[in-house]
C-alpha cells in the first residue's frame, strides 16, 4: 500500500529564494504565530499508521473508505493526489450518518459507534457532494461543470449540454441500502454547498439555499442564467438561489427566487493594519441612497438558525447577518468585513443566538496554512457578538499548534456541543485535526480538546484531514477526507467534567444538518444540575461550601423517589434561590435553580 510519491522541491526552493528572506521583520514580529511547543508538532506520517496526539478526546472508531473510493494506478499503488474520491461533509438522522464524497456518498449505521456499519457506498461523480438530510430525502451538492445528470465520471465536453448537472441532487433513502434519485434542482452556478430551511407555516415543503461560487452557465443550457455584473438586471450573480422542494413530490423541486441580498450594499470603510484589526461596519443603505459597487456576488455557505429567524452568510469578503423569517425572501440586516479574512467560509451561532463564529478558509482548504510561519489571525475563526441586529467582532481563534507543510490546514466546518451554560464547538481543521474550542468569553477563546494525526505522507502534501467535525447525540463525528469516518468522544478534564459531558449527551436530536442549526434544549437531569455546580466551582461563581452542600443534597434527592424526591428537590431550589443575589455568577446560580425546579417537576 505505498503511496505514489514525487518529491521535487525545485520550485519551492526557487520561490523561497525569491521572497522568504525579505519578509518585513518589524511587522511579522507583531503577528502572533502558532506554537511549536505542543504534542501535535512532529507527529510521524502515514495514511493508516500516522502518529496521533490527542487531548481530552478519544478515538472510538475509524472506518476507512471503501475500495471504490480508493483509486490505484496501474502498478497497484494508491493514488491520493486529488479530490476525485475525497470524503466531504456529513449529515445525521436517527442512527444514520450520511457522508458525502466527491464521487458519491456513504450511509453509515452508527447504532454502535465502536462499529459503524456501512449500508451503502453510492457511486456518483458529484463534486463536492455535501449532503443534507430531511426525512427520507437526501440532498447532495454538485458544483462544477464536469458533473453529469447520470452520475458518470466522463465529464461533459460540450459547453452547452443537456447532460450537465449543476445544482442539488435529491435521493430517496427510505431504504438506506438502495438510494433512489428522485429529483434534480439545476442552478446557474451549481451548488458548492446548500442549506435546508424549513417553512415556518408549511411543513409539506422545504427550502434549499443554494450557494455556488463557480462560473455562470449559459442561458442556452439553463434558462434564465445570465453572466453579467451583479447589479445588472437579471444577473445570476449577487443573489442566493432559493429552491422550493415539495416533500411529497421532490421531482417538482425548482429555484423560486434569486434573493438579492448583495446589491446596494455600501462598502465598509478601509481598515487599520492587522493585528488588532477591527471590523468596520455600516448599516445597509437607505432606499434611494446612492449605490456603491456591490461587494460579494455569492455566498460560500449559509448557516440558518430558524429558531431565531437568523442566518449567517459567509460570502466572499463579507460575513452577513440575515433575517429569514420569510425563508423565500431572506433579508440582510448587517454585515462585517475584516482585512485579516481572505475568504469568509461558514458560520456557527451560539445556542442563545448572541454570538456567531465565522471562519476564514484562507487558501480554500487545499493549502498548508497552519505552518509556524502562518500568522494566527489568518485562516482563523473570528468570534462576533450580535446585539440589536449588529455584529461586533471580538477575538480570533486558530488551531494553536504548528502543522507541517505536508498538511493542508485552515479553519473549516464545525458545530456546537450542547454543554449547558457554555459556548463550545468542535471543528475540523483538515490535517490540523479536530479542535474543540470554548468561546463563552468571546474575547478569550480557549482550546479544551484536540485530536490530530501526522501527515498522510512525510515527503509531500496530499489533500486529507478533517472536512468537518460535528457533535451528534453524544459523539463527535469527523469526516476524514482520505482516512474515512472518525468517531470521537470527549473525556473529562480540567476544562470539562463528566457531568457536563453527560448533560451534553442528554440532548438527543432526531435529525441534524450542521448548516441548519437546531436549538438545544436540555431535559431535566441530575447531570444538568451537577454540570452547573461544576461550572460554579470552576469559575468560583458560588461559595465552595454552598456548592458542596448542594451536591450532597442532590445526591440525597437522587436516592429518593416519587414525592419524597420532589420535595427534596423543591427544598433545594428554595435554598439555592436566595444565594443568587450575592453570588459571583448570579446568572449561573439561576440556571442551577431552574434546573433543580425542572427536575422536581419531572416525572
Amino acid at each position: 500500500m505505498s503511496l505514489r510519491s514525487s518529491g521535487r522541491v525545485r520550485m519551492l526552493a526557487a520561490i523561497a529564494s525569491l521572497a522568504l528572506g525579505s519578509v518585513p521583520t518589524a511587522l511579522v514580529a507583531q503577528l502572533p504565530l502558532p506554537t511549536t511547543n505542543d504534542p501535535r508538532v512532529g507527529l510521524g506520517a502515514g495514511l493508516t499508521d500516522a502518529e496521533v496526539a490527542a487531548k481530552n478526546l478519544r478515538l472510538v472508531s475509524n472506518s476507512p473508505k471503501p475500495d471504490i473510493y480508493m483509486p490505484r494506478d496501474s502498478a497497484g499503488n494508491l493514488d491520493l493526489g486529488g479530490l476525485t474520491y475525497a470524503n466531504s461533509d456529513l449529515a445525521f438522522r436517527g442512527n444514520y450518518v450520511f457522508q458525502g464524497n466527491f464521487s458519491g456518498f456513504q450511509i453509515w449505521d452508527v447504532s454502535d459507534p465502536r462499529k459503524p456499519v456501512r449500508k451503502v457506498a453510492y457511486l456518483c461523480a458529484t463534486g463536492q457532494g455535501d449532503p443534507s438530510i430531511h426525512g427520507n430525502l437526501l440532498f447532495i451538492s454538485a458544483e462544477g461543470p464536469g458533473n453529469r445528470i447520470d452520475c458518470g465520471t466522463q465529464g461533459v465536453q460540450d459547453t452547452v449540454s443537456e447532460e450537465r448537472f449543476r445544482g442539488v441532487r435529491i435521493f430517496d433513502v427510505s431504504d438506506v441500502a438502495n438510494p433512489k434519485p428522485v429529483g434534480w434542482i439545476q442552478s446557474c452556478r451549481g451548488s458548492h454547498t446548500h442549506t435546508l430551511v424549513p417553512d415556518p407555516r408549511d411543513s409539506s415543503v422545504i427550502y434549499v439555499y443554494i450557494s455556488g461560487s463557480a462560473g455562470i452557465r449559459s442561458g442556452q443550457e439553463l434558462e434564465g442564467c445570465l453572466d453579467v455584473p451583479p447589479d445588472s438586471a437579471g444577473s445570476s450573480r449577487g443573489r442566493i438561489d432559493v429552491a422550493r422542494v415539495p416533500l411529497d413530490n421532490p421531482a417538482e423541486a425548482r429555484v423560486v427566487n434569486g434573493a438579492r441580498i448583495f446589491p446596494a450594499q455600501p462598502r465598509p470603510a478601509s481598515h487599520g493594519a492587522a493585528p488588532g484589526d477591527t471590523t468596520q461596519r455600516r448599516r445597509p443603505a437607505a432606499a434611494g441612497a446612492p449605490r456603491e459597487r456591490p461587494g460579494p456576488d455569492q455566498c460560500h455557505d449559509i448557516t440558518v438558525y430558524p429558531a431565531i429567524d437568523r442566518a449567517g452568510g459567509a460570502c466572499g469578503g463579507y460575513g452577513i447577518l440575515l433575517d429569514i423569517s420569510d425563508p423565500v425572501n431572506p433579508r440582510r440586516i448587517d454585515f462585517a468585513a475584516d482585512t485579516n479574512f481572505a475568504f469568509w467560509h461558514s458560520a456557527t451561532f451560539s445556542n442563545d443566538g448572541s454570538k456567531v463564529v465565522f471562519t476564514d478558509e484562507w487558501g480554500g482548504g487545499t493549502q498548508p496554512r497552519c505552518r509556524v510561519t502562518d500568522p494566527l489571525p489568518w485562516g482563523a475563526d473570528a468570534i462576533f457578538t450580535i446585539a440589536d441586529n449588529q455584529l461586533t467582532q471580538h477575538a480570533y481563534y486558530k488551531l494553536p499548534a504548528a502543522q507541517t507543510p505536508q498538511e493542508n490546514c485552515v479553519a473549516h466546518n464545525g458545530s456546537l456541543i450542547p454543554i449547558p451554560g457554555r459556548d463550545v464547538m468542535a471543528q475540523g481543521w483538515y490535517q490540523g485535526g479536530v479542535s474543540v474550542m470554548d468561546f463563552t468569553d468571546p474575547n478569550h477563546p480557549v482550546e479544551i480538546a484536540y485530536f490530530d494525526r501526522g501527515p498522510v505522507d512525510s515527503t509531500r502534501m496530499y489533500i486529507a484531514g478533517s472536512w468537518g467535525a460535528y457533535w451528534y447525540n453524544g459523539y463527535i463525528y469527523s469526516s476524514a477526507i482520505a482516512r474515512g469516518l472518525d468517531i470521537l468522544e470527549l473525556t473529562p478534564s480540567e476544562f470539562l467534567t463528566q457531568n457536563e459531558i453527560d448533560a451534553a449527551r442528554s440532548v438527543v436530536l432526531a435529525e441534524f444538518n450542521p448548516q441548519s442549526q437546531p436549538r438545544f434544549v436540555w431535559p431535566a437531569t441530575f447531570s444538568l444540575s451537577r454540570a452547573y455546580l461544576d461550572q460554579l466551582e470552576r469559575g468560583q461563581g458560588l461559595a465552595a461550601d454552598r456548592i458542596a452542600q448542594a451536591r450532597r443534597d442532590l445526591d440525597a434527592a437522587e436516592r429518593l423517589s416519587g414525592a419524597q424526591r420532589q420535595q427534596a428537590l423543591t427544598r433545594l431550589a428554595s435554598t439555592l434561590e436566595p444565594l443568587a443575589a450575592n453570588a459571583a455568577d448570579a446568572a449561573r446560580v439561576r440556571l442551577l435553580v431552574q434546573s433543580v425546579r425542572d427536575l422536581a417537576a419531572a416525572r
Partner: protein
Amino acid sequence: MMRPRFPTPLSVLVMAGTLTTVAPACAQTAGSSAARPATASAPAKDYVPADVQFMQGMIHHHQQAVVMAAMAPTHGASERIQLLAKKIDLSQRDEMAFMQRWLEDRGLPVPEVGAHDHVMMHMPGMLTPEQMQQLDQARGAEFDRLFLAGMIQHHQGALTMVKELFAAPGGGQEPTLFDFAAGVDADQRAEIERMQQMLNALPTPRSPAP
C-alpha cells in the same frame, strides 16, 4: 480532447465484503450495466489541454505576484501594504507548489521559475517590464499606489484566465483543478475588492499615473 475521463465502474458498488449492485442516478443513460472490477482505478488521463495551459500559465502568473510582493519591505511600503504583500507572498507560493504537484502527478512539464520572460507577456493582467520597472523605482506612498493598482490588474488577469479555462470545452472539470480554479476566482475577487478599498483610501498622488 473528447476522451472519456475516468474509466471508473458505475454500476458495481462494493462494501465491507458484500457485493451490492445499485443503479446510480441514470445507469441506463450512462450506458453502464456490466459488472466491472471491484476497485476504483486511478485516472489515466483526467485533463484537457486547456487545463494544462491554465496550470502552467498560472505558475508564471503567480510568480510575478511573488516578485512584486517581495519588493514591499525594501520599497518603503506602508504597514498595511507590507501585510497585504506578506499574505499574497504566502498564498501564491503555496499555490505554485500546488500547481506544480498537479502537473507532476500527471507527468506533465512543470515550468521553470525564472525562464518566463517570453511567456509572461501573453498572460492576462501581467505587468509589462516597464510597469515592473516603474514599481521597482517607486518608494513609499507611490509604491503603495503602484503596487495596489498593479496587483488589481494582475488579479483581474487571473479571473480572466479562470474564465477562459471554463469556457474551453471540457476545461476545469478534474475535481482538484476545478476546486483550485474556483478558489483562485473567489479569493482573488475578494482580494481585488479589499485592494480597491485600500487604493481609494490612499492620498491623491501629486501627478497622475503615466
